[in-house]
């Protein structure tokens, strides 16, 4: 089911923080927004692969559901 725009922004923020905490995502402020999203999409792919989800790079419901599950604070991957 399509997600409401405001909720979408909130979810994006949540996902960003999750990927920073557990997947070593570093948001580099660049001029090209598209590049930002690419970097994040890479990290989403990494997280989807780790949890055995379908690897799409998109912040879909299943991905978000897993991000919202209570979990351990140790990162899943680290540089």
């Amino acid at each position, binding site marked *: 089911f399509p997600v409401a725009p405001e909720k979408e922004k909130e979810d994006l923020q949540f996902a960003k923080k999750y990927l920073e*905490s*557990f997947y070593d995502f570093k948001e580099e402020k660049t001029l090209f927004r598209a590049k930002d999203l690419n970097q994040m999409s890479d990290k989403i792919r990494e997280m989807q692969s*780790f*949890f*055995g989800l379908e690897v799409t790079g998109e912040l879909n419901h299943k991905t978000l559901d*897993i991000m919202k*599950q*209570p*979990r*351990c*604070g*140790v990162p*899943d991957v*680290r540089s």
Partner: protein
Amino acid sequence: YSTFPHTPTWKKEDVTYRILNYTPDMLQADVEEAIARAFQLWSSVTPLRFTRVYNGQADIMISFASGFHNDFYSFDGPGGTLAHAYAPGSGIGGDAHFDEDENWTKFTTYSGYNLFLVAAHELGHSLGLSHSNVFGALMYPTYMPVDTRDYQLHQDDIDGIQALYGPPKESSALPTKAFPPQEPTEMIPAEAPTETSPREEPTETTPSKPPQRPDDCDPHLTFDAITTLRGETLFFKDRYVWRKSPYFSEIEHDTIFSFWPSLIAGFDAAYEVDNKDRVLFFKDDQYWAVSGYSIESGFPRPIQNLGFPTSVRKIDAAAHDQNTKRTYFFVGNKYWSFNENTQSMERGYPRKIAADFQGISHPVNAALQKNGYFYIFHGSNQYEVDIKKKKLIRIMKSNSWFDC
């Protein structure tokens, strides 16, 4: 399983721990027991021994804290991050922190987090394991409310920790030292004899060796239950699952826990109602309904709900006939026929198995419906039966499905 970069481990077998403070959610004794049990999980599969100390610096310092607590990883209030721990090392190395904003519980409930389960996971980090991507492993990153009464480490966890420390030395599988509490001392000397007060023998000790899975082609192999599931066929024995799938040629070996962590192993019967994408599992006088991985709410339910008399305390096997929408339940020397459309037992049952299924011995261990035939398993034999005519076609070994 995975380890931390540079694979840090404790370079000794005697590791100390200290509980710095407690959560008000639980009795102090329950906190201590949960943590000691968590350590016991790991000591039972490695040469490691864990000694509790009450003063000074221990290798593993355990504490409860909220929000910012003097390290770089502040906690985040209820939910989200529950706890974290540091890889083996000096100072903060090995330490485990638990988010006090969570509701910590002694047993698995849906309103809190089982401290034993979370502590066991964090101590895996304290000993050098990182996260595992094997669903069902203790070191899987997300919390999974499972029944912890006879909790056993997943094989992946055992492989991981033994890659770091090796298996236990035969005689070393002793309970954790200093359990129950002893007089506070500065440090309990490593060579102190193991003392367990007669007052509190450890009652729940994880067996150091989970029973092994029988070989696929063991001629005496029998099954507890068998069912189809979304085009695959699952064979159950104790906690093990043999999975035959059209998608891959080999038999895959799993555990019930890895698919349905909250179901207890040792099913009596199972069958799929394929048009509802639903499999029912039976154990003793209860049954559960699952759809894929998820267990339908409102289960388990008593088997009497299906129409069995109270005298029936368990069923031996079940198989569903997709054509007639009837499910046959085998109990002792009799069988029942259940109408899935009306959700009721048919009149005139139970009938004697021998009356309608000539040549088939009882009790029936498991039953399967596939390709228009029933396969009825008794011991290490299975009987292929033409469902319409209820006519015995041939007898095969129970594990003939495994291409032995």
